[in-house]
Every structure is written in structure tokens, then in C-alpha cells.
């Protein structure tokens, strides 16, 4: 499945992240590499750089990976996770400024047809308030 861009969903809540991933799987199917993470390592609400890095690995595609996040800390931790990866991987990761649930479905739909990482990001971000 390396022909399509991968999608990573990062939420403060594992339930939200998993729920968004379930929606992607149901609506778009299995054609897009997909991973989610949510919650801090202690089991509370939050995000973890380590878990985000692991999710990026699980959804890895040579075409690149698009990250969708919910709120503040999820974005900064996603940026940190990306910065801790080797430069050649960093170049293939984008963080999308889009609503996490809708953005994940939209990004996955765009990715499904083999669109480029840039197109996936642009499409997800088209959703932002108009």
C-alpha cells in the first residue's frame, strides 16, 4: 500500500483518535496507510511525542505521511515528533491545519487515489473555515 500517502491522527483523547480512524476505515477503506494515537503515557488526556513517532512509523509510506491533530499540544508534539526523525523522513511529512475528524476523512479520500502529499494537505486544508 506504499502507493498512497499515509494518514496519522493525533488527538488528546485515544477515543477521539480511534473513532476518527474508524470513520476513515469505514468510509474510505483499507487502501490508505492509517495510524492513530491519543492520550498521554499515563493513560490521561494528552499527547506523547513517542506515541506520535510510533504512529508515523505505522502509517509510513514512501509517498509521505500527513498528520491531522486536534488542539494546541497535539500540534507542538507532532512538530517535535517530526523533528526527531531523520531529515529524509522529515521531508516526507506534513502537518495539516484542518479539523481532525473531517480532515482525516477528506485527506484519506484524497490520498486514496494516489494524490501527492502536497495535494492531500491542500485538500484537507480546503476544509478550514470559509
Amino acid at each position, binding site marked *: 500500500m506504499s502507493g498512497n500517502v499515509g494518514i496519522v491522527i493525533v488527538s488528546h483523547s485515544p477515543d477521539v483518535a480511534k473513532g476518527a480512524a474508524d470513520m476513515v476505515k469505514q*468510509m*474510505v477503506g483499507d487502501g490508505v496507510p492509517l495510524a492513530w494515537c491519543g492520550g498521554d503515557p499515563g493513560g490521561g488526556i494528552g499527547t506523547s511525542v513517542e506515541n506520535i513517532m510510533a504512529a508515523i512509523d505505522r502509517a509510513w509510506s514512501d509517498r509521505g505521511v500527513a498528520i491531522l491533530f486536534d488542539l494546541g499540544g497535539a500540534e507542538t508534539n507532532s512538530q517535535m515528533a517530526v523533528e526527531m526523525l531523520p531529515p529524509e523522513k522529515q521531508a516526507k511529512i506534513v502537518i495539516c491545519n484542518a479539523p481532525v475528524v473531517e480532515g482525516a476523512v*477528506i485527506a484519506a*479520500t484524497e490520498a*486514496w*487515489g*494516489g494524490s501527492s502529499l502536497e495535494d492531500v494537505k491542500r*485538500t484537507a486544508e480546503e476544509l478550514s473555515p470559509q
Partner: protein
Amino acid sequence: MSDATQDSVVITHDVGLHARPSVALTKLAKTFPSKIEIAATADGPWIDAKSIVKVMAMKAKQHSTLHIRAAGDGAAQAVAAIKQLVIDDFAGA
């Protein structure tokens, strides 16, 4: 364009062209090389059927007519396939 084609179909799906049907239509459209557009009226505005954001934003309702047109390689097959998807109530999506 000689291989351009156009057709229309009434949407029967109970929520109209919402999230899941939109994803199904866009995914199907992406499987064809032709340029495919849909519209709520024959006069347009015509939107790119391969753009999930635009298809969802159309919010075509149940009982409304969906106009489909395509041009280029596989245009006739593309229009027929999308029409059939709508007739089948987006089943299997």
C-alpha cells in the same frame, strides 16, 4: 470533444450526497482518467467530481437531480459508473 458525454440521475439515498456517499462518488471518479464534473442543475455550476471537498460542499439532497458530465478517456464509462452508483444508493461504499 467528441467523446464528451452527459447524463443525469435522481438521488434516492436518504441523506442525499453527504459524507459517505460523497467519499464513494469521489473514489469512483478518481478511478477514471477523464475529466468528470457534477452539478445540481444542467446549467451548472459544474464542480470537479474528483474533489472530495467540493462534492461534499455541494450538499445535494435526496430527490434532487444530479447532473454528470465527463470528457476525455473513458468518459462514457465514467458517467455510466457514477450514475449506477447513485442508482444503487451508494451500496457497497
